[in-house]
């Protein structure tokens, strides 16, 4: 199956969608994470910590904490990875999360602050389908034109 990224910059496109998730913290607290090498790498790349088990991680100082202590950005990425059928609000996720999502992940996000320069993270990704506000774009350049 071809991989795809759906980007929404217009709130009108998502606000009434039953699959739209505003509160990433609450979603993370309720639904399980799919743990594999990639989801474990999100902890190390964003929070500079290490996966310990499915419920805990070690932070950058080596202190063992519950996963509820992960940053909101890391939780958002873990939500997207584990539940690709939803559209997640990406406003709380930082610039480092935008980079990781656009370079290595797929899924649907609401990101009103998306800038043309962010799209350069997509450039190296071949055979990736991209939609912007519900419209499929034929290539990276078409997305960049529309942002």
């Amino acid at each position, binding site marked *: 199956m071809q991989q795809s990224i759906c980007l929404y910059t217009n709130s009108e496109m998502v606000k009434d969608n039953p699959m739209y998730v505003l509160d990433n913290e609450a979603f993370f607290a309720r639904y399980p994470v799919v743990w594999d090498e990639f989801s474990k790498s999100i902890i190390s790349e964003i929070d500079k910590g290490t996966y310990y088990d499915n419920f805990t991680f070690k932070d950058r100082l080596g202190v063992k904490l519950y996963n509820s202590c992960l940053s909101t*950005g890391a939780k958002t990425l873990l939500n997207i990875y584990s539940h690709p059928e939803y559209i997640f609000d990406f406003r709380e996720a930082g610039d480092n999360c935008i980079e990781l999502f656009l370079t290595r992940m797929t899924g649907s996000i609401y990101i009103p*602050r998306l800038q043309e320069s962010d799209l350069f993270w997509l450039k190296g990704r071949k055979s990736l389908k991209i939609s912007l506000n519900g419209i499929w774009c034929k290539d990276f350049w078409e997305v960049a034109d529309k942002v």
Partner: protein
Amino acid sequence: MKYKLSNCLLEIDAQPGVYSLGQNSGTGKTYLFNLLKQLRSAYQELKILVASYGDFTEEELINRLTSNKYDIIMMDRYEIWSSELLDYFLYKQKGDAVIMLDVKDLNNVILEINGKLDIKIIPGEVKVSEYVDTTFRRQACCR
């Protein structure tokens, strides 16, 4: 200002004003938020207001902001619950309080942001200090 807690020393090195806490995730913003909650309980003479999404209604927060003068204010996850009305009442505190906003896109707030604060976490110590960065200045100038 240095505050001693049983598990760490918290230092906030900033003048009163409005500050963003940076555009990256995983820098310790929510950790700082929880430390400030501890500080509020430990030092009741300090006027500290910390709020995150779902903690208060807008009306409750505005009531607090109009009836108190705070030393430290932190709004966590402010991106998803900010409003122009709240921005206005926060702005009125900027002469007295160090106001820290967890906001990634500075265009989402009408407040004039005075600078960016950097959070440094080392074992037993958390230091929050002003950080001068050219990218931030460029973004602020473009607003």
